[in-house]
C-alpha cells in the first residue's frame, strides 16, 4: 500500500534515483538458475516490511536466494524505473505492481502471463474478487498480495466532544459534515483529496460505476457514467457548501490538518491504519475505524483503495522459482508475520486464511484494542465485483487530478475533471492500437 511519503523523502528518493539506477544496472545478473548453487532472484518493491519478508523467506529454505531492492513508490519513480528496466531487458525477476497498473504492464508485456503457473492450490487460497482484478481475458497476470477495502477512520475524541454519531450512509455523512462545520468552525469532517483520483475511483466503484469494461473484446470506456456522475455531484455539493476541505492529501497542509485535528475523519484503505500509526504516534488512542458510509445500507458494497500484486516479469529466467517465492509471500503465515513485525503495516491479506495471523500479529494498542482485522474481514467480503482498471491508469489518474486541483481552486467542477480524464485517456488507448469504444452513460 502506497505509503504516504513525506515531501522530504520524496525529494530524497528522486535525488537518489539516478544513483540507484546506476548501481543496480551492475548488479542485475545471475537470475539464471545454476546447477550448483541456489537459484537467485531479484525482487523490487516499495512496500514496507519487504526486507523482513525476504529475509524470512531466505532463511526458510536453501534452494532460492532472493535479493531484495527497495525502490521508490510507483508514482515517485518506481513505475518509471520498472518500465525503463523492462525496456532495457533487465527487469527484476519479481516486481510489485499495484492493482490500477496491472492491465498496463500486462499490455506492455512486462508482467508475464502466469495463468499456467498459478496452481489450483494457490488459486483456492486467494480472495476471488482480488484475483479477478488481475485476470484479463481469462489470463492471470499478477498474484494479489493484499486487498484494502476502503474504510472510515475517525477521531473518537472529537466525535464525542461534538456529539457526533458515526455516519452509516452518505446522507448521514453530509449531515454530520454540516454539524461539524456549525459546531466547530475551523474544523471539517473530512478532506476531498484533489490528488486522490484513486479514492474518487473507489467511491465511484462503490456506487456501481464501471469505468472500464472488456466485454466484446474491446476496452469500453465510460468514466462519466451515471453512478460516477452521482458521486461527482455529491462531492461537488460538499465542496460548494464548504463542508469538506479540498486540497492535496500528500501535502504539508494535509499533514497539519490531521495532526491538529482539523479533519475528523479520513476515507482510505485498510493499509492507512498502519501508515497513520507510523506517521502520527502521538495520536495513539484517538482513532477508531468504521465501515465506509453507504448509498444503500441494505446492500452494502465497497471498493478497494490500494493493494499490491506481484508479477513475474518477462526478463525472469526462472519463472517457477519466482512463482514459489510469490506464493510464499502471499500465502504463508510467516510472510505476513515478518511484514507486520516492521510495526508500520496493517496490510489486509488477499489470502483469507492469513487474517487470523494478521489479527494476532497486529499491535492493537494504537486503536485502543479495536479488532480492526475483523472489521476489514467483513468489509473485504463487500468488495463489489465487476470493476476493472484501465490500460493507462497512471495517466488517467493524473489528468483527473489536474482537473480536481482546478476544481478545488474554484475552476470547473469535479464532473468536468472526469470528462477531461476520459478525453485525455482515449488518444492513449487508440495510439496503442487497442480496440476501444466510448460511452457516456
Amino acid at each position: 500500500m502506497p505509503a504516504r511519503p513525506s515531501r522530504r523523502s520524496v525529494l530524497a528518493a528522486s535525488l537518489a534515483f539516478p544513483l540507484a539506477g546506476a548501481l543496480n544496472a551492475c548488479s542485475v545478473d545471475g537470475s539464471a538458475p545454476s546447477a550448483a548453487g541456489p537459484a537467485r532472484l531479484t525482487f523490487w518493491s516499495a512496500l514496507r516490511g519487504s526486507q523482513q519478508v525476504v529475509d524470512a523467506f531466505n532463511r526458510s529454505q536453501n534452494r532460492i536466494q532472493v535479493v531484495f531492492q527497495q525502490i521508490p513508490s510507483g508514482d515517485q519513480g518506481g513505475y518509471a524505473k520498472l518500465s525503463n528496466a523492462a525496456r532495457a531487458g533487465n527487469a527484476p525477476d519479481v516486481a510489485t505492481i499495484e492493482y490500477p497498473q496491472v492491465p498496463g504492464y500486462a499490455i506492455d508485456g512486462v508482467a508475464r502471463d502466469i495463468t499456467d503457473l498459478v496452481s489450483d492450490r494457490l488459486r483456492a487460497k486467494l480472495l476471488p474478487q482480488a484475483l479477478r482484478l488481475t485476470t484479463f481475458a481469462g489470463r492471470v497476470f499478477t498474484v494479489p498480495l493484499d486487498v484494502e477495502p476502503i474504510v472510515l477512520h475517525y477521531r473518537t475524541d472529537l466525535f464525542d466532544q461534538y456529539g457526533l454519531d458515526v455516519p452509516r450512509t452518505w446522507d448521514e455523512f453530509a449531515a454530520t459534515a454540516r454539524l461539524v462545520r456549525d459546531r466547530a468552525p475551523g474544523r471539517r469532517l473530512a478532506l476531498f483529496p484533489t490528488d486522490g483520483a484513486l479514492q474518487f475511483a473507489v467511491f465511484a466503484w462503490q456506487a456501481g460505476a464501471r469505468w472500464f469494461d472488456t466485454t466484446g473484446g474491446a476496452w469500453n470506456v465510460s468514466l462519466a457514467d451515471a453512478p460516477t456522475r452521482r458521486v461527482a455531484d455529491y462531492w461537488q455539493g460538499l465542496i460548494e457548501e464548504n463542508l469538506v476541505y479540498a486540497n492535496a492529501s500528500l501535502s504539508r497542509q494535509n499533514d497539519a490538518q490531521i495532526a491538529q485535528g482539523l479533519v475528523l475523519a479520513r476515507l482510505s484503505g485498510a493499509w492507512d491504519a498502519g501508515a497513520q500509526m507510523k506517521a502520527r504516534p502521538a495520536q495513539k488512542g484517538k482513532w477508531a475505524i468504521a465501515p465506509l458510509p453507504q448509498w444503500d445500507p441494505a446492500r452494502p458494497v465497497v471498493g478497494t483503495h490500494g493493494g499490491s500484486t506481484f508479477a513475474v516479469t518477462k526478463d525472469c529466467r526462472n519463472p517457477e522459482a519466482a512463482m514459489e517465492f510469490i506464493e510464499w509471500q502471499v500465502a504463508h503465515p510467516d510472510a505476513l508475520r515478518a511484514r507486520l513485525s516492521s510495526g508500520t503495516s496493517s496490510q489486509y491479506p488477499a489470502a483469507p486464511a492469513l487474517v487470523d495471523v494478521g489479527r494476532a500479529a497486529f499491535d492493537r494498542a494504537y486503536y485502543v484494542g479495536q479488532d480492526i482485522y475483523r472489521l476489514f474481514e467483513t468489509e473485504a467480503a463487500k468488495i463489489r465485483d465487476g470493476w476493472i482498471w484501465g490500460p493507462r491508469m497512471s495517466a488517467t489518474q493524473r489528468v483527473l487530478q489536474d482537473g480536481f486541483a482546478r476544481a478545488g481552486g474554484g475552476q470547473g467542477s469535479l464532473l468536468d475533471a472526469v470528462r477531461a480524464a476520459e478525453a485525455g485517456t482515449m488518444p492513449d488507448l487508440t495510439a496503442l492500437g487497442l480496440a476501444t469504444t466510448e460511452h457516456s452513460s
Partner: protein
Amino acid sequence: MTLTASRPAVRPVPVPRVRTRRRERFACGVLMTPFFVLLVTVFLIPVGTAVWLSFFSADEPGLGFGPESTVFVGLRSYAAVLGDPTFLSGLGTVVLYCLLYLPLMVVGALGLALLLDSGVARLRAWAQLALFLPHAVPGIIAAIIWLYLYTPGISPVVDLLGKADITVNFLGVHAVLPAIVNIALWSNLGYNMVIFYAALQAVPREVLEAAVIDGAGPVRTALRIKTPLIRASVVMVALFTLIWALQLFTEPMLLSQSTPMISARFSPSMYIYDAAFTRNNYGLAASASVILLLCTIALSYGVTRWTNRSRAA
C-alpha cells in the same frame, strides 16, 4: 567560414592549381567532418528514429494482451495526438507563453542595450556582468532558485509581500505562467542584451554624429537610428527566443512538483515526456515530437519570410 580560413591567402609560392584544389578539398573535409558527424548522430538519426516510431507501433489486437507484432500504422498516432485535448491545451499554453515572453524579452533586452550604449548607465562593465551572470546559471538551478522564492511559507519574497498585506500566490492558477516567464527573462535577458550591445558597437560613428548634428536627441537617436541599424540582430534574437520558447520544459517540469496548477502535460515538450515515460506510449511521443518540430520549422520560416518581405518593402 572554413573555406575562407583554409584558403592560402598570403602564400606567394605558386602551387599547381590542381594540387591546391585537392588540398582545399581535403582541408575542407577534415574541418567539416566533426560537424557532419555530430549533425548525423545527434540530429538526423534521432529525428529519423522519431519519424519511424511515429508511423510504426508494436500492436496487439483487441484488448492488447496477446503477442505483439510491429506494424505500420500510418497516421494513427498523429490523429491521436491531434485529437488529444491535453496536447492542444499544451500548444495553447505555449502560444500564450510566447506572446508574453517574446515581446518582453526583445523589448527588454533592446532597451537595456540601448541604455548601456548611450552611456546613461554608469559602471557599464558592472551592469553588463550583473545582467549576464544569471545566464551562467543552468536552467534547472535557476528554476530551483525561483521555486524557493515562489513557494509560500519558505519564500522571503512572499513573506515580505505578506507583511505589506499583499497576498500573491505565484504558483496559483493565474500567476503561474507569468511566474515561468519571469524565470526565463531572468535567465536570458542579459545574454540577449549582450548580443544587441555588440551589434550596437558596430553602428558607424559618423551616422550617429550626423544624427546629433541634425538635432536628434539621445532617445530619437536610439529609436530611429540605432534600432533600425541592428535590425538583423533583433530578428535573430527573436527567432532563437521563439525556438527556445516553443520547447518550454525545464521550468514548468520543476515547478510542477510544487503546484498542481502545472499538469504533467502543461507544454508540448512535457506532453512528449509524459507520453514516453509515464504512459510508455512511444508512438504517441514520437508523433507529438514530429508535430512540435514541424510547428517550430513552420514558425521559424514564417518569421524569416515575414521579416525579409517587410525589409524589401
